[in-house]
């Protein structure tokens, strides 16, 4: 083994490793995602790729891999010497519009990384008037916010012309909790989750027929500034001040309910894992790498999803209850108890608990992007959006982010879960309800 150093992983990191393992078993590719900068004009490809390579060289952490430390807890082994495996950075030209570009961006996301030590890949797609810089990343290395912060760091170094070494030892180590604290958190979690065990099974799309398929398909819905302002105002009217996330979740659930209902999938309840960012500061550069997230598990009865008003009320009530009971914090603490479990065992435990349905669909609202620069290499930055692959099951999710007064929506779906007609209907319903 080469010379390396070890960074301790948190309990949530280990849960994310389990999701990676589950997704790898189901699709052959792990849990990865892509953050994309949409830029007006043509980027200087050679200059950009040289800068990217130099930047990546300064961050050996991106060539690490998970292992067990001497205390048997999971850690991220970081090579001290430079690792020869390079991060790929390809540039492509396409004659076509957004659909053609999205298809090329999906291609890079739907391919596995070329080595166990590679967790990042870059792709630049240009169509003559616009360029898209896409960073594909392994979720074991970054969460969505972390990926934005990493791009931001790269952008800052490009602007200042200095390649600052960002030593991993400057990063915040995961918080340490005593055994007693973790057990109390687990007990509290059990109390919050007990009602779920009594109300049946989560509703989910069948995936047995498409197991082994690795391709995710994506639909992008972008709202301009005016439409985004309308969405914000409507969320204030219908859900209350600062209730954009519960409102977007209610709209997404309502639209997904129509699809489930049309398929007669209505026995049980909708279980929606919602990812939340646990960073106190959205621009905290000491928390770039690994996962600083937690989850809230919303549970909705199909009859509650018929009306948007009822949905908003149910979601707000559950949101408040979860935060009051510190569910998200307890999940972070209790997850440390899983760290000694091998991944295959943790997968089994997660599947057993969720009756093989981790959720009906995933949802996340990332909020305002941490990377909000208006210029990138002398070009205007028009937009920033995320294209996530998801754990399978559920293999389908709706994601929102906010970039400089614009809201982006992305539907991510394992190919085959939804028919083309259903995907069109979902896109149409979301657009109509929101704008």
């Amino acid at each position, binding site marked *: 083994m080469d010379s390396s150093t070890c960074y301790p992983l948190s309990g949530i990191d280990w849960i994310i490793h389990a999701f990676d393992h589950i997704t790898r078993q189901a699709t052959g590719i792990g849990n990865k995602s892509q953050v994309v900068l949409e830029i007006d004009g043509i980027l200087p490809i050679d200059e950009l790729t040289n800068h990217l390579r130099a930047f990546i060289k300064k961050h050996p952490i991106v060539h690490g891999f998970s292992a067990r430390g001497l205390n048997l807890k999971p850690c991220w082994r970081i090579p001290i010497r430079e690792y020869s495996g390079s991060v790929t950075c390809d540039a492509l030209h396409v004659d076509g519009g957004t659909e053609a570009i999205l298809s090329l961006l999906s291609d890079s996301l739907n391919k596995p990384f070329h080595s166990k030590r590679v967790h990042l890949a870059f792709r630049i797609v240009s169509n003559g008037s616009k360029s898209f810089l896409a960073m594909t990343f392994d979720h074991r290395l970054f969460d969505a916010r972390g990926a934005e912060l990493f791009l931001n760091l790269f952008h800052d170094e490009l602007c200042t012309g200095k390649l600052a070494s960002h030593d991993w030892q400057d990063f915040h180590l995961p918080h340490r909790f005593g055994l007693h604290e973790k057990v109390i958190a687990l007990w509290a979690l059990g109390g919050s989750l007990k009602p779920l065990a009594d109300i049946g099974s989560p509703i989910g799309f069948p995936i047995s027929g498409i197991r082994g398929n690795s391709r995710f398909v994506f639909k992008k819905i972008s709202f301009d500034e005016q439409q985004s302002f309308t969405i914000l105002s409507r969320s204030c009217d219908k859900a209350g*001040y600062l209730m954009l996330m519960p409102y977007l979740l209610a709209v997404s659930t309502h639209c997904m309910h129509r699809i489930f209902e049309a398929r007669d999938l209505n026995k049980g309840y909708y279980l929606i894992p919602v990812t939340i960012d646990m960073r106190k500061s959205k621009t905290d550069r000491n928390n770039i790498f690994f996962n600083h997230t937690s989850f809230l598990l919303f549970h909705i009865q199909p009859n509650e999803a018929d009306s948007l008003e009822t949905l908003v009320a149910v979601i707000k009530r559950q949101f408040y209850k979860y935060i009051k009971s510190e569910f998200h914090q307890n999940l972070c603490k209790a997850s440390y108890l899983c760290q000694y479990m091998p991944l295959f065992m943790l997968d089994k435990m997660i599947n057993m608990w969720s009756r093989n349905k981790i959720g009906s669909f995933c949802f996340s609202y990332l909020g305002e992007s941490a990377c909000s620069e208006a210029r990138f290499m002398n070009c205007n930055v028009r937009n920033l959006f995320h294209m996530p692959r998801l754990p399978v099951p559920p293999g389908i999710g709706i994601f929102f982010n906010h970039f400089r007064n614009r809201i982006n929506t992305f539907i991510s779906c394992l190919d085959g879960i939804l028919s083309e007609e259903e995907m069109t209907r979902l896109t149409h319903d979301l657009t109509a309800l929101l704008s």
Partner: protein
Amino acid sequence: MKQKSNVEALLVQEVAIMLNIPTSDISVDKPLHELGIDSLSFIELLVIIEKNFNVNLSESGITAEDFQSIRKLASHIEKIKQE
């Protein structure tokens, strides 16, 4: 008046901890969303208020107007504490 400023001071302190920024960066007249508060931190703030001041905000007749700034929120809390 003094108690009112105590409520305000505590809210400023809690928001500063929540957003990981110095208290000096927090203007009590700024709308909460401009301070960087989102849905999650807003609910966290409500829970902190209810725990610290032993009040039930949802049953207190609170309006969207009362959430416009820390000053207005503090004033509403002060009012319901006196009732």
